[in-house]
């Protein structure tokens, strides 16, 4: 029930709207002050003093403090005059920045909330392929150098020898190579990065506990004996909680932004010259607009 309310776009809008209103209400230089008046608050001064002190380990002199304040005042005056002259209107940078700020506000709301384990579990359940624990193999391998041109019969004979000699060090059957003779509990990605794409997939068809092969790698042929194998599976939340939370946040952010935009968009009527309609995709909105 609560989850449903939290996901409700209208509620998001109400929250965002309230937040925007709160921001406007507390913005400096707002209502109650005359056109050509700038009110410097005690907090403004305290902030400057504190910043200065932190940086220089002493209090600012009167001149220094005045200069810092004058900077603020200068910016405020120019800002107001620029608004009065409408300089904000034709400036693509200002427009984009303000539009971005609206987006950020909605994104921030998504960031503020800490998801419960239950929510993350739901997210994980609905996106299982994004969070898998790879299959892992513990295996030994014997390398056969292609330059030695092993025949099928040679390979079979080697396999027979390996199978018969259970307690013998398998490394003595291997041609020289700089690959590990034994891979302990190794994930499929690492296996493929070591032997080449497709090697791990070929291991999936090998039995456990017995010499098998040959399997082709990027370097040549290999005989392998799998000691143990853990199949790939969907990850548990405890194993990938950070990654799930990151993905969940991103999804929330997108959703909040989309919700905000949709609710605002619904309040606008967009007029498009009829002559241009045939150029546009026939989406729902535009059909509606076209009917106006």
């Amino acid at each position: 029930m609560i989850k449903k309310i939290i996901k409700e776009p209208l509620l998001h809008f109400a929250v965002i709207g309230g937040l925007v209103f709160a921001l406007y209400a507390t913005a400096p230089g707002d209502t109650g002050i005359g056109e050509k008046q700038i009110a410097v608050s005690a907090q403004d001064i305290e902030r400057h003093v504190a910043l200065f002190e932190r940086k220089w380990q002493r209090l600012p002199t009167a001149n220094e403090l005045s200069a810092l304040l004058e900077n603020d005042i200068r910016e405020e005056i120019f800002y107001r005059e620029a608004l009065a002259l409408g300089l904000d209107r034709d400036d693509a940078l200002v427009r984009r920045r303000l539009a971005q700020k609206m987006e950020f506000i909605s994104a921030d709301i998504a960031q503020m909330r800490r998801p419960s384990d239950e929510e993350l579990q739901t997210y994980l359940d609905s996106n299982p392929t994004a969070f898998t624990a790879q299959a892992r193999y513990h295996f030994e391998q014997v390398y056969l150098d292609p330059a030695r041109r092993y025949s099928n019969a040679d390979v079979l004979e080697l396999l027979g020898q390996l199978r018969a000699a259970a307690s013998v060090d398998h490394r003595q059957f291997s041609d020289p190579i700089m690959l590990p003779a034994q891979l302990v509990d190794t994930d499929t990605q690492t296996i493929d990065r070591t032997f080449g794409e497709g090697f791990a997939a070929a291991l999936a068809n090998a039995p456990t506990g017995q010499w098998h092969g040959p399997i082709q790698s990027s370097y040549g042929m290999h005989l392998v004996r799998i000691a143990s194998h853990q199949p790939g599976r969907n990850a548990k939340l405890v194993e990938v909680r950070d990654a799930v939370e990151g993905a969940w946040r991103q999804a929330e952010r997108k959703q909040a932004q989309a919700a905000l935009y949709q609710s605002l968009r619904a309040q606008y009527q967009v007029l498009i010259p009829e002559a241009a309609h045939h150029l546009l995709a026939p989406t729902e909105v535009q059909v509606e607009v076209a009917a106006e």
Partner: protein
Amino acid sequence: MRFQFTLPASLCAFLLAALASPITLAQGAKFEPAPKDRIYSPYPAENFPRRVYFGDTHLHTSYSTDAGMAGQEKVGPDEAYRFAKGAVVESQTGQKARLRAPLDFLVVADHAELLGLAPFIRKSDPSVLNDPLGKKWHDMVKAGKGYDAFIEWLNFGSEKPFDSPEMTKSAWSEIVDAAEKHNQPGAFTAFIGFEWTSHPDGNNLHRVVIFRDGGDKAKQVVPFSAYDSEAPEELWKYMDRYEQSTGGRMLAIPHNGNLSNGRFFEKKKFDGSKWDRNYVEARAKREPLVEITQAKGTGETHPYLSPKDEFADFGLLDKTNLQGSAPKTNDMLANEYARQALKDGLALQETYGTNPFKFGLIGSTDNHTGLATSAENNWFGKAHFVEPSPERYKDVLIKSLVDPNLNISAVDLQASGLVAVWANENTRPALFDAMERKEAYGTSGTRLQVRVFGGWDFSEDDLASSEFAKIGYDKGVPMGGDLKSAPNGKAPSFLVRAMREVEGGNLDRIQVVKGWLDKDGKTHERIYDVAVSGDRKIDSSGRCRTAVGNTVNEADASFTNTIGAPFLQAYWKDPDFNPEEKAFYYIRVLEIPTPTWLAHDAKYYGLKMPKGTRLSSQERAYTSPIWYNPS
């Protein structure tokens, strides 16, 4: 009461018997006591490096002023470490990038000079705004004139534009925090480091400084910058002070001698005065490695210095210095390239008692994109303005102020390089210690593996052993090691193995590069091919004069591994050994030709590259040397 200690007579007899002979077990099997030199666990004796770790010790992010102020503001230290660990990261130009396989370690080595200026401008930090010049540049950047601010900064050269200890400290702390966050002992090493960027008159003397330690120690200092001093000697003193005051450890890695116009390996102090023992010892101690391959050129050797080395003409950038302020002349070359310096070091050791140029060889990227890419088919460029685009091959990386012929152009850059370290585990201390003992090598950007051991008692049979590394350490020394006082009548022999990257180009050959000092004080060099692919033969002079061939389809930016070999190995004994002569031996491994980034660009963007554009090249690896010293 008196305590009486008695044993039944039968038990006494049994114990006496047991002491006299091996215990007889119930089944009749004999228990042989272990020899005295053996311990129960077999593993302490096998405590040697089992695998190689690939990394980049020289990566810049937006916190480097020449990257950040020039417009690379997206990829900072955090993103750089994430990228190195294999994450998808969006580059400055908005392109998604990822490594084929993650790196094992990374040093974010941002320039110490005005560290963090760009990001601190971006967040309008008071530490920038409180300085008039900082404020001015801040306002320029915010008004969209960031490039003009960058040029103003550049024009200050080695002069400090303004001082903001607060900014340096905060920026450093952020960089250290990023390394701390991403350092995962056993899985990924995020080293703390920085670059000291001294280039008097445009002559490159840059050094990357790496910490062995964590943030607790690193945060007790701030990076030493060229504003503090342009003299390497002063950097070494800073390193001394750090180690004394924190108990930590540091090493410095110089790079780009090729852009120093003869100053990199000059045999005098920075101020022109004569060397002394202190200088020589400090250099040997502080600079165990030299980065000889990176985007801005190769520093192994030059055809002028090594006329008999047909592979010397590779990745050269030899027209000028770092800033294109003066043309290069041949007399400068001897003080710019590693092979010559290694030779000079043998002679200098006679004079000073210590070899000042006893360094190992590595590679790294020096990318300023925050993206440690070094593969030709995945190269995001040296700087964000040469990230993949249809135009980048026409771009200029560094414009000369005096002569456009001295520009460093994008086409002259190579997707290079990497450092590989043979270490016991993937941790800061293990990798640092391996670098300090020079058990490291460099590649021109691929993950080619190479391992070499030198000793007096190796035999051909050792090559076939499945215990290659164990034999290597038992009977010899690895790359970076020392051989001393040749046993009577013996010449040093070497075991070498090399294997190409998993999906990379096959190997052409393994070479031994030998340098030595004769009794008249003259130095020499000679190259021996010790393993070649296919049916080619090594002649009686120790060379294979048959080229491996070239399968590169330039239009398709592709190649096939139908030539070369995925793996080569060799046992080689020096046929020209003179026990009286100091010498060094390093390994060079060449791959078959593969397409360059220019070929990949041409294919991807459908471009026609100008005639003469380098579309294929033989990637390679260089190991740290093994030195022989008669005494």
